[in-house]
């Protein structure tokens, strides 16, 4: 599944870039994340509870790693999530651009989804992916204010 979209932050580029290295703020980017802690450097791990429509309270162990960091321009985010309902595995290439005092994030995520969520939820995957990423970024944006 490819999710390609963008988000306009109400904060400047360095703030956005720095914010996303902070596990507390980064956690907001992944809606439903209960905990996210630094494992080492820019590797994080935690737990996430997802409820979207028919899926209620699906628990996932998540891991996040930020790589190819080019401050304050771009980075790649490797995401893994694993739970009883299935798993998610993928990468998102993120680019930040100045938009005056604001910052535009352009991202392209390539996600593999497996298990039950994929096999019976295909109709909704695209929408869920888009909705969750936008919701997450909105939460990050609020946190940065």
């Amino acid at each position, binding site marked *: 599944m490819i999710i390609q979209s963008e988000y306009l932050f109400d904060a400047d580029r360095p703030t956005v870039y720095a914010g996303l290295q902070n596990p507390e703020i980064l956690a907001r980017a992944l809606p439903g994340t209960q905990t996210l802690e630094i494992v080492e450097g820019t590797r994080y791990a935690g737990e996430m509870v997802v409820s979207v429509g028919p899926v209620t309270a699906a628990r996932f162990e998540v891991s996040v790693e930020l790589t190819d960091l080019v401050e304050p321009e771009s980075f790649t985010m490797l995401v893994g999530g694993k739970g009883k309902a299935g798993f998610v595995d993928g990468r998102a290439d993120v680019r930040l651009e100045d938009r005056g005092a604001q910052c535009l994030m352009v991202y392209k995520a390539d996600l593999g989804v497996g298990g039950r969520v994929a096999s019976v939820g295909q*109709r909704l995957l695209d929408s869920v992916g888009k909705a969750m990423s936008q919701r997450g970024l909105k939460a990050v944006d609020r946190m940065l204010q």
Partner: protein
Amino acid sequence: MKPAPFEYVRPASVEEAISALTEGGYAAKALAGGQSLIPAMNFRLAQPAVLVDLGGLDELRGIHPRDDGGLVIGAMTLHREVEHSSLVAEHLPLLAEVMPWIAHPQIRNRGTVGGSLAHADPAAELPSVMQVLDAVLHVQGPDGVRTVPIDEFYYGLFTTALEPDELLTAVEIPPLPAGSRSAFEEVSRRHGDFALAGVAAVVQEAEDGTVARARLSLLSVGDGPVLAERAMACLAGRTLTAESIREAAALTSEDLDPPGDIHASAEFRRHLAGVLTTRALDRLRA
């Protein structure tokens, strides 16, 4: 494919139901007709800890006429009851027209109007139909009763203005203004399947034959019912002609950002939305 365990509550009143939902918080789920929830539970995608069965709440059933020709439909009213209601057929032909598009008779015999509206599945027919009919939702929670206009009800994917401890109790639909005509169009893979795309349309004609007001809502092309606002605006004040319809359909398609799935790509959905909008509006030409 068996549901995970849950605690079962069968309240005898709306108030009891609300307190059960309040107590259960996010782990509680209201069970209306169960035609979406129970399959999700059988797949173990939905695993509510508390299930509040609304089946005993007869006060939420029934189709009640308003003096002005509008209707109030209780949330627990079955699809079948709406389908076969002479009141609905007389006053809200669009609602009668859409019922056979909803799954199959066996599902409509259990599925409820409130369940469909609250579930907020983006492929559901009723939210779009209620949207073009300017419905108002009656919501009850621990703090009392409130009403929500349909345009403020849908927030996003499976998300509505309902708080976890609130119940949708009824939907109130005003009468169609004089000079109004309605149409529904949908394409699905098989009869009764989730729509690939669909559109509900109401057009109110002014005395001079121009469009006084148009309402167009699409389903299965977004996170919920999608109001085609630019298309609606472009029709206002004009007569329905091949030209104005083409424009409206083009605007409809252009404004969409539909999801793709294994049955229809985003591009195909966008295309279908335009085709169906054209067909619906064509039917509404005098």
